[in-house]
């Protein structure tokens, strides 16, 4: 088949099985847009800002496990996409981002809408390419998908100069079914000697702890993780990125750990003697002060990326490999072993953990006359029956969601954990809904975050994505306000959001349903009413307690045993 570069792009995407492209047209990609117009296999989703395109593709990828695909133009199209690319990079999400570039002959001349996209994105991509010859186009696209989706996933940028997609230059096209790169070998064999060492340490443990992260979600290891944890009966805590891989509620699950983790999870981390990290990267929000992190523990670390091992915390027994494969081998080795977990020690350990749990560290004032954000999330969980995809923005509402919505399946909790990108939630919800058309999708946000990508309400209307936006409106950038209260003697410097729009009218202006909820007794009814509107986006503006804080909290630079707790009258 002879095709020109513009048709090669669309034909390749079709052959690769791509369902959606999230994008925004512009000069350098007009040939590709014309090719999109001539076909109907690949559906294009027109966003209202390129940041929204990357977040929507990201939400699609996180919720479906398939790579998200983005198409933007050169210059500002590419720079607007950078925040979304970095967001995906920090959370290891597979994206393929096609950026238009000025015509090859103009590169380097400061041409109109020219920017060095390969240079700008280099530090926040897994890899990137500049296509220099139309003959390399199909194979480069194949490499991009291969690199993005294998090993530790991540975003890949393919920069395509306009002349490469010239409709007048036709070349033979064949879909490259498979590819090999001599410099990239993502599949690694699990070392059985490391598995043996790990099993030995795990079965010798008196106070074991399992700490599971985003890698367990990305590798689709939820079932293997459940089998493994239950086989041992050891306590498990999950990171913000890992929630749902192991279900909640569950007797072995002690909740999230880290800066806003539970008392029992953090103290169990501090006191454990053997720690097994499963696809987690010892992020500073998880470890707190490194010097005080798990001071008495032998650390076992499963990760597909060798550079994650001993990066922040010294690892005693690394196991490099796909989390799923490693968990299967660990489970088999434990079954085959003559040794069993030390049930007596385990009983004592659980007694201690249950004592910590009895503190009820997530308690809050349930008699408040104001709407408590925690209360909204508890009701959201009840009304959705836990059966929903929940996206979030960044801040207090994100932490409250992680604490109060009980995720019992992986890929249901969609948030920007690594980069902490405000504006992520709404476009991510659009991508999530498109990837899961029959599912219930809610976006938990705040009045500050939502305004960073509010324009995507138009995209949601155009593609009829019936998202439920839960706006926890406390008229503050809540997390900033909380830090200012704790660490800056309540000097609320520029964290008060003045001149807020009327969100109900705003939602209506975009063609959606808007609801204002001001009293705790109206919360449940409003949620039920909103979720009953199956075919409409409903924007629910909850006026919440301005002064509510997220507890427990470990201040930056403190250890897991130094938590701030809520004082209740």
């Amino acid at each position, binding site marked *: 088949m002879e095709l020109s570069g513009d048709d090669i792009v669309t034909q390749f995407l079709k052959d690769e099985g791509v369902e959606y492209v999230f994008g925004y047209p512009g000069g350098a990609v007009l040939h590709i847009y014309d090719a999109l117009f001539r076909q109907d296999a690949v559906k294009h989703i027109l966003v209202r800002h390129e940041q929204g395109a990357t977040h929507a593709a990201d939400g699609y990828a996180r919720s479906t496990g398939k790579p998200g695909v983005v198409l933007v133009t050169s210059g500002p199209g590419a720079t607007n996409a950078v925040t979304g690319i970095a967001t995906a990079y920090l959370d290891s999400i597979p994206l393929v981002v096609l950026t238009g570039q000025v015509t090859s002959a103009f590169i380097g001349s400061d041409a109109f809408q020219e920017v060095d996209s390969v240079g700008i994105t280099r530090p926040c991509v897994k*890899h990137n390419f*500049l296509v220099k010859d139309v003959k390399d186009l199909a194979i480069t696209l194949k490499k991009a998908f291969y*690199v993005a989706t294998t090993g530790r996933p991540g975003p890949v940028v393919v920069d395509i100069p306009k002349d490469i997609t010239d409709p007048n230059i036709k070349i033979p096209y064949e879909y490259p079914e498979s590819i090999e790169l*001599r*410099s*990239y070998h993502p599949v690694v064999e699990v070392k059985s000697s490391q598995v043996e060492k790990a099993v030995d340490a795990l079965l010798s443990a008196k106070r074991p702890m399992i700490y599971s992260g985003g890698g367990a979600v990305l590798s689709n290891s939820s079932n293997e993780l459940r089998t493994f944890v239950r086989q041992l009966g050891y306590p498990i805590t999950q990171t913000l990125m890992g929630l749902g891989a192991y279900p909640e509620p569950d007797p072995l699950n002690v909740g999230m750990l880290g800066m806003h983790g539970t008392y029992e999870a953090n103290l169990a981390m501090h006191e454990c003697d053997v720690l097994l990290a499963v696809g987690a990267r010892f992020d500073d929000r998880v470890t707190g002060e490194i010097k005080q992190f798990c001071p008495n523990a032998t650390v076992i670390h499963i990760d597909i990326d060798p550079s994650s*091992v*001993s990066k922040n915390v010294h690892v005693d027994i690394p196991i490099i490999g796909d989390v799923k494969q490693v968990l299967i081998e660990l489970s088999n080795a434990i079954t085959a072993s003559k040794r069993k977990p030390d049930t007596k020690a385990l009983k004592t350990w659980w007694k201690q953990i249950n004592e910590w749990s009895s503190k009820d560290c997530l308690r809050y004032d349930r008699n408040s006359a104001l709407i408590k954000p925690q209360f909204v999330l508890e009701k959201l969980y009840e009304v959705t029956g836990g059966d929903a995809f929940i996206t979030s923005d960044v801040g207090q509402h994100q932490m409250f969601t992680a604490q109060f919505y009980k995720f019992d399946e992986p890929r249901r909790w969609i948030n920007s954990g690594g980069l902490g990108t405000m504006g992520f939630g709404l476009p991510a919800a659009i991508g999530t809904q498109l990837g899961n058309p029959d599912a219930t999708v809610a976006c938990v946000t705040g009045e500050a975050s939502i305004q960073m990508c509010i324009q995507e309400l138009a995209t949601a209307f155009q593609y009829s994505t019936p998202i439920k936006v839960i706006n926890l409106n406390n008229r503050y950038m809540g997390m900033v306000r909380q830090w200012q209260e704790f660490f800056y003697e309540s000097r609320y410097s520029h964290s008060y959001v003045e001149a807020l729009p009327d969100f109900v009218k705003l939602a209506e202006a975009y063609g959606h349903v808007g609801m204002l909820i001001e009293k705790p007794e109206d919360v449940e009814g409003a949620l039920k009413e909103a979720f009953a509107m199956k075919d409409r986006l409903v924007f629910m503006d909850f006026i919440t307690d301005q002064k509510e804080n997220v507890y427990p909290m470990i201040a930056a630079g403190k250890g897991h045993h130094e938590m701030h707790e809520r004082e209740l009258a």
Partner: protein
Amino acid sequence: MQHIISLLMENESGALSRVAGLFSARGYNIESLTVAATEDASLSRMTIVTSGSNEIIEQINKQLNKLIDVVKLVDITANGEHIERELMLIKVQADNSEKREEVKRQADIFHGRILDVTDTTYIIELTGEGSKLDAFIAAIDASDILETVRSGATGITRGETCLRL
């Protein structure tokens, strides 16, 4: 401690900036970096001289390996015996017979070669380990040094161990 890391990478445009960018983004030291194509034109060989604690050197090795363009890598400092060489061209003031004799004598001692002679200057070529080049510079009166240019170190392991595909 100082380490010499040798690597083979795809001879693609931008490959050098990926390595340089990695070092600056992660705050690693880079003392010198040399790169040129190999006998296989599709591959470049790069030599990086860096320093840091064992943990940092381990991370540098891992992060370099993680770059998609890097085909193979060896920390030649950590892999037994190796040879290290650096080239220096140094232009010195030689405007009277006393200086001319002294510079010639020093160049001979260090097995340097004089490549260019004018009425007032000499250019000397010197190869060796970095410390030898440092010693030569120290042996010359500082006020007589007009210009130095050093290639940065290259290195190769002794014996049959090779960095090749």
